[in-house]
């Protein structure tokens, strides 16, 4: 029933995960698997494009919390982009914008990775 989908792309050594639909305690498992796969394949520079993400609950936030430290200690990062205000608001209330790089556009996120390399 739950309407959630993940698409993967890569651009110059960066991995882009596109989220679509509603990320809740049910669909969070799919995101978890997608991140685990990338990390297992040693892809640590990850951009999560949230353009079509229509909803997120704290279960979805939890997935981002679980992998950020590992990914950063391996020289990568998880950067988030293209959030709708509704989705951003949940991240913001919990103080994520100070800890995570959240960019308006995917292009800005790509640029941030390139500055640091």
């Amino acid at each position, binding site marked *: 029933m739950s309407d959630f989908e993940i698409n993967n792309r890569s651009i110059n050594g960066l991995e882009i995960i596109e989220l679509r639909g509603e990320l809740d*305690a*049910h669909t969070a498992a799919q995101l978890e698997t997608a991140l685990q796969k990338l990390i297992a394949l040693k892809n640590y520079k990850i951009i999560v494009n949230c353009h079509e993400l229509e909803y997120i609950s704290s279960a979805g936030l939890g997935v981002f*919390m679980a992998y950020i430290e590992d990914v950063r200690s391996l020289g990568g990062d998880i950067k988030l982009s293209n959030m709708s205000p509704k989705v951003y608001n949940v991240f913001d*209330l919990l103080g994520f914008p100070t800890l995570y790089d959240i960019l308006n556009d995917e292009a800005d996120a790509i640029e941030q990775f390139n500055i640091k390399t």
Partner: protein
Amino acid sequence: MADAVKHTITIPASTEYLVQVREFVAKCARQADFMETDIGDIRLAVDEACTNIIKHAYKYDRNQEIYVQIEINKNWLNITLLDSGIGFDPGNSKKPDIQESIRQKKRGGMGIYLIKKFMNKVEYSHNGTMNEIRMKKMRPSIVSED
């Protein structure tokens, strides 16, 4: 002045039904004239509360049920959730420290904070064999529209 309107839904205690609860809540909130942003907030609060019941009160036993009632009266949207699982009272929850949780490899502790943030009032109680969560949100008084 019309009587209060009530709507109810009962779902099995499993996360695949969260999407149905959210749709139910959105429909009721729209009927109560909330702006789209507030409708999103109310959906999230009820989702978080149901997720907690599934995880903590019922420990993922999908044979259990969650009952959700929404009452719309003149000034308020009142939501009541009932479950028959492990009882609970959150007390005063402060803002979660995400940086600290990441360091400690914890990933939860955000749900109750969000529920309280988005609703005007939240109460947990226990009656006989049932746990009851009541939350309310004030209906909008739209500038110059009535």
